[in-house]
């Protein structure tokens, strides 16, 4: 029968053979390259944090540690060890900076974005289009005058500029508010104004409208702004590096840098500290990734 061959059920090999085509092969290859190049450093960081000093400094890299040793973590947290880093303090400092920054940034940018999106005032379009130009000025440019300015202000008003967490919070706000404003303003624009106008006609005050109608509808964008701002404050290096001198006031990035530059190399401790610093942020992002993408992209690029 001429059709017999076509009707015969394919065996496993033939099934696989027909599945493997060149485009699919390239696809899987590229995907694997990406995944490995991303996951390996991450794995290396976490696994190195559980190694002993001998495993770290040996002749060959230890890909799978023999056991989950807590040596590195003990050095970070246990005050009994020789080189006690008091990392718990640094974790606290980072939290004390990142969370207030995120909260204040959300509040201020919501108010400002609402004004830009809904209210009419002279200079509004100019403001929205040029606000991202703020980022033309790099941190290294601003830090010199900022340092000088704040030193003068501190001398006059009697506050210490260095080792001052609230000052650091304010500088982080300055770095994150423009993009937060931009993202939120664009997002607010996508919420139909008719809903709010209906409420206004019914006698609701402006603030009432913001609170009861706009905000609940904008939750994805608000969450994005909060996470994004938290991430920037948590990871930030330069300003913390320059403004913080006392080891007990260091945020995590600076302390990790200090551990790295210690005369006796202790990579496993560096990796342990890095793991502690990385896991919360990565976790936060992955858990709420949908919100972030919506916020980043919906207002960002035309089309």
């Amino acid at each position: 029968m001429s059709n017999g061959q076509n009707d015969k059920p394919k065996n496993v090999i033939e099934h696989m053979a027909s599945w493997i085509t060149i485009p699919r092969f390239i696809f899987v290859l590229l995907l694997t390259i990406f995944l490995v190049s991303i996951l390996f450093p991450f794995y290396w960081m976490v696994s190195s944090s559980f190694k002993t000093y001998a495993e770290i400094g040996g002749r060959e890299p230890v890909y799978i540690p023999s056991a989950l040793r807590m040596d590195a973590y003990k050095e970070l947290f246990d005050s009994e060890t020789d080189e006690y880093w008091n990392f718990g303090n640094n974790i606290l400092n980072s939290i004390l900076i990142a969370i207030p920054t995120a909260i204040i940034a959300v509040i201020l940018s919501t108010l400002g974005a609402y004004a830009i999106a809904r209210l009419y005032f002279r200079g509004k379009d100019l403001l929205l289009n040029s606000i991202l130009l703020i980022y033309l000025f790099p941190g290294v440019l601003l830090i010199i005058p900022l340092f000088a300015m704040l030193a003068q202000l501190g001398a006059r008003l009697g506050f210490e500029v260095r080792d001052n967490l609230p000052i650091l919070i304010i500088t982080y706000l300055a770095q994150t508010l423009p993009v937060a404003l931009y993202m939120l303003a664009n997002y607010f624009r996508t919420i139909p104004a008719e809903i709010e106008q209906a409420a206004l006609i019914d006698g609701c005050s402006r603030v009432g409208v913001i609170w009861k109608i706009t905000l609940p509808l904008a939750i994805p964008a608000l969450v994005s702004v909060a996470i994004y701002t938290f991430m920037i404050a948590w990871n930030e290096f330069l300003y913390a590096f320059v403004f913080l001198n006392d080891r007990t006031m260091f945020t995590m990035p600076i302390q990790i840098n200090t551990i790295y530059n210690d005369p006796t190399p202790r990579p496993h401790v560096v990796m342990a500290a890095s793991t502690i610093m990385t896991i919360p942020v990565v976790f936060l992002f992955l858990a709420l990734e949908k919100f972030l993408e919506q916020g980043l992209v919906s207002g960002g690029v035309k089309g």
Partner: protein
Amino acid sequence: MTSAAERKSFKERWNSLQSREARLAWALILPTALIVFGLVIFPAIFSVWISFREVGLNNLNNVFNAPFVGFKNYIDVFNDFAFKFQGMRSWGAAVTSIVYSFVATISTVLLGLIAALLLNRPFRGRGIARAVFLIPYVAPIVSMAFVWRWILDPRPSGVVNDVLLSAGLIERPIAYLATRGLALLLVIIFESWRYFPFAMLMILARLQAIDDTLYEAAEVDGASTVAKFWYITLPELRYVIGAIFLLRLMWTFNKFDDIFLLTGGGFGTKVLPVLTYEFSFRLFNFGRGAATSMILLVILIAFMALYIGVVMRNVDET
């Protein structure tokens, strides 16, 4: 012609809905405006002022009385051996910055494009893959920089050395981040690795918005995959890619943390931000540091003006 009776009084204009609305708007924006103005715009202007004066540790507390020295700081920077281009062995900070920014941005966009194309069509595990692809962008720069430094460790215990030695590709371990040329290449690779998710997200969003009927029509006409990509996908992506390129170029040009943490600016990787830092906080010559950052800014603005004027003008279709 408005008579005196018809022209609105000042009081009426003050209380009009329009004015009240504008006042409310300004009140809502005020805190943000204050912070941004006080901590970004004013320091930027102040930086220009500082760049024309001699400011060191000795007069930092008395900075408003610092002596005016005209363009001396700028001339010092231009003549500085770290800044000038001195032939192929020693590029100088300005050229290094430009080369680094361009190449890193191009490869970031390319990687982002490839990643977006990979994630465009549904497949099993796509959600997880997309989440994993975001990790380099999201992880703290400190930890990622030190992990990479550790992986590129010059001793045989560094992973890259171990792999290459075992595969017989090299005979002796190489100090990757301490080799001129190689260090810059690696910094560029690191930069593209870290920031491709940003490009990927933007491109992916745009890709998903492309009308499928365009592709279907092309298939009917017998277009190959490559042709479909070249004549449909790419033109649709032009605006996004143009915008991403500009943004990333700007941010990469200004970046300090990444290079400082990876190589400290040594072995041919000294870029302008790192040079600025060194003038200001190693030599404590704040005037010169400010001048370097001004030069950085001017180069950047010049490029952006050129880019927006020439490239973006042709891309204004949606």
